[in-house]
């Protein structure tokens, strides 16, 4: 019995059998609420994730502009900001120190979790998994809907923390105790932290509900002929992403639960008898802040790959389609995704080299960390060889995909530096780290997301995005990304620490005043360019060029066999059967052969 049949088995049995025959004739009528709000259609849920993610991206980006304003222009006064944001955030025309830390913390939390986890894998896992494996919907559309609404609730709570009297949490996105465990440690550790932790707990639930569904759908709901080795690489990447999430988010939740007990119920998991200014010695005994770091980074490191893998998968697909060539080394791509997923769980302590970790233990983590370079290099090699002598079509999606490869290489190389525990003594907590992870994980994944949006927009809305705006968006963003983060490497090598409020007070860092101003200026320009993209996105939904053919990119994968505006259920009539892998481009002189084409007798084997 098929799984489609298994899922409605109960209905067939419970209703009388004569309704079975016309069971698929009746339409179910959708109201505005069931279609756009509490939708169980994976495509609508994907759009909900995407647009909520975009709202957060704008807010998070705006926060970075604000704190870059402080870093670039520490002596200037922006009195108009005071009128907009109020006295807690801006005093005498300058960002207050409390606000600065709140902005940095919230920027990190929002971008890592809300934009690049929910916004990226939430959008594309929901959108692409059923469409590309040939399923009507997710294994459990209801759970899928819950996943979005938990994310929405998390968003509301996180947003509300911006408006409390003591300000949002300001102890850094990693929420290390004691700043996160002690209300008296800083203003942001009071109500702001309570809201932060509630928001994050809701977010973990959302991720788990989503992840369970993605795994069950990929393994159980594939159409006939869609063996695992005929899956597009997007699906493989999203599969490993979901596995990473399902195995690592519960660990974060455990860490948060212990943190809640330390905050509210007087336990001593992370708190010890430290002295607090104005409070004195704490009554707690024997707690260890390092314990939290272990629990946090056991999620925190896989989280990096939760962000990056979906981008890798989409880039693989987009590079192949727009090079009109099969992806180079399909099995090697899967193997390297698998290797990255395994290694992701074995390297968390490289975030903790300077916490007093045993140096011998540290050397094991150095080795494991540097091993990640092997699958990463395999992937880069395969992307470059896919491009090699391809008949490349430079669509905006393709530009962003190539941009991703460029950023992944330049950001990945600095990872080799940071993975060494000896070098890390100098580089830890400097701008070198900021430059590294922003390029390799932040901007690169954003590029993967942009590539995905530009590529699948015709499928999402039945319209094309404006290409000219797309190219402007791409060139300013990639130039800006390098201009912002490249100079930070120099600052970091010179020992400039991260998280400082004002560097102009330090003799050693005064030399970077102009550089910081330059970075801040570019950051503002790049942020403004993203508004151009937003305009393109929303304008094109209504006024964009209409998609006239089902398969505008001449792509092989299944989503392009659906109608231009697919309804809930995706395919009219039967789900197509699959006969081949998705990368038959330029085979035997044929430009592309969709997966639904049976293998001909004279066809050569791949």
């Amino acid at each position, binding site marked *: 019995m098929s799984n489609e049949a298994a899922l409605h088995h109960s209905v067939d049995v419970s209703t009388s059998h004569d309704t079975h025959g016309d069971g*698929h004739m009746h339409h179910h009528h959708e109201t505005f609420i069931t279609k756009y709000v509490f939708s169980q259609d994976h495509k609508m849920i994907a759009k909900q994730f995407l647009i909520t993610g975009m709202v957060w991206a704008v807010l998070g980006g705006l926060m970075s502009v604000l704190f870059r304003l402080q870093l670039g222009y520490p002596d200037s006064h922006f009195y108009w900001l005071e009128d907009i944001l109020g006295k807690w955030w801006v005093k005498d025309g300058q960002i207050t120190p409390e606000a600065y830390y709140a902005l940095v913390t919230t920027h990190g939390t929002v971008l890592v979790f809300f934009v690049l986890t929910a916004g990226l894998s939430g959008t594309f896992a929901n959108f692409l998994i059923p469409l590309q494996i040939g399923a*009507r919907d997710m294994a459990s559309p209801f759970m899928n809907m819950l996943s979005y609404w938990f994310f929405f609730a998390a968003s509301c709570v996180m947003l509300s923390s911006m408006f409390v009297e003591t300000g949002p949490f300001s102890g850094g996105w990693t929420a290390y105790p004691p700043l996160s465990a002690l209300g008296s440690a800083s203003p942001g550790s009071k109500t702001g932290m309570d809201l932060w932790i509630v928001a994050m707990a809701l977010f973990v639930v959302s991720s788990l509900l989503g992840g369970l569904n993605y795994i069950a759908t990929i393994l*159980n709901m594939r159409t006939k002929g869609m063996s695992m080795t005929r899956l597009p690489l997007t699906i493989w990447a999203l599969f490993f992403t979901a596995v990473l999430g399902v195995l690592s988010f519960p660990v974060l939740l455990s860490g948060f639960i212990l943190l809640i007990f330390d905050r509210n119920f*007087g336990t001593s998991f992370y708190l010890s008898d430290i002295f607090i200014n104005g409070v004195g010695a704490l009554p707690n005994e*024997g707690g260890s802040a390092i314990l939290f770091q272990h629990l946090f980074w056991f999620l925190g490191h896989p989280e990096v790959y939760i962000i990056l893998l979906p981008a890798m998968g989409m880039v693989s697909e987009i590079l192949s389609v727009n090079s009109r060539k099969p992806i180079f080394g399909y099995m090697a791509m899967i193997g390297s995704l698998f290797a990255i997923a395994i290694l992701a769980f074995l390297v968390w302590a490289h975030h903790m080299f300077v916490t007093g970790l045993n140096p011998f233990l540290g050397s094991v983590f150095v080795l494991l960390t540097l091993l990640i370079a092997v699958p990463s290099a395999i992937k880069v090699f395969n992307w470059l060889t896919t491009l090699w002598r391809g008949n490349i079509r430079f669509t905006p999606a393709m530009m962003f995909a190539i941009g991703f490869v460029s950023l992944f290489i330049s950001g990945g190389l600095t990872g080799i530096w940071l993975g060494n525990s000896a070098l890390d003594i100098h580089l830890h907590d400097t701008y070198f780290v900021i430059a590294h992870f922003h390029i390799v994980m932040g901007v690169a994944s954003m590029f993967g997301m942009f590539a995905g949006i530009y590529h699948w927009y015709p499928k999402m809305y039945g319209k094309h995005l404006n290409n000219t705006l797309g190219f402007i968006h791409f060139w300013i963003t990639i130039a800006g990304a390098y201009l912002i983060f490249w100079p930070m490497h120099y600052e970091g090598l010179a020992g400039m620490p991260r998280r400082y409020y004002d560097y102009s007070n330090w003799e050693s860092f005064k030399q970077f005043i102009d550089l910081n101003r330059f970075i801040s200026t570019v950051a503002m320009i790049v942020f403004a360019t993203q508004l151009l993209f937003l305009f393109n996105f929303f304008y094109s939904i209504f006024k964009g060029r209409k998609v006239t053919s089902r398969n505008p990119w001449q792509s092989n994968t299944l989503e392009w066999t659906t109608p231009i505006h697919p309804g809930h259920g995706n395919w009219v009539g039967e789900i197509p059967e699959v006969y081949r892998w998705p990368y038959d481009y330029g085979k035997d002189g044929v430009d592309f052969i969709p997966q639904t084409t049976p293998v001909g007798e004279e066809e050569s084997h791949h």
Partner: protein
Amino acid sequence: MSDNLIMSQYQNTPSGGRIHPHKFTLWVAIGSICMMFAAFTSAYIVKRNQSKWLDIDLPIAFWYSTIAIIISSITIHLAFKSFKAREMVRYRTLITITAILGIVFCVLQFIGFSELKNHGIQIFGQGSNPAASFLGVIVGFHVLHVLAGVAAILFIFIKAYSSKLKNYSIVPIEMISTFWHFVDLLWIYLFIFFMWVR
């Protein structure tokens, strides 16, 4: 707007006998819950090797609760078998006993903690030792999972009585039974863990 209704529009796509997607989802969820408790217990081990660790004797009530939950696993297995044999009266009795045993288990865990409190071991609050707090948090979160199982039993019970249609799908009861056995095994693991690792 259940997913069944939506799915019922679709024609079948023959794709070989695979596991029911909802059952599969449950197994992945069980893996996820395992990771959560793995995190708790490994944090416990890390913390144990640091200073000021209190050596706690487990209360007697935990032995009784262990017996209760093992029996409940047997009763839910029998309930599942009678459901398959369509012996609905027997099934209802057994599933009720299971739910009651689940609640008894939770009560016994609570009694265990008051026993500890009587011995002067404080679980939470000022002056508590992490060893006792760990016990409280881990056992507490296990109890939450047992209660989730009880809630699931109540849910299928109410559904069975309120629905006008007779539903003989074995998937829900099979899933609850799987989850129940898992929660049982999880407790046995935790119990042995707390006895050995002190």
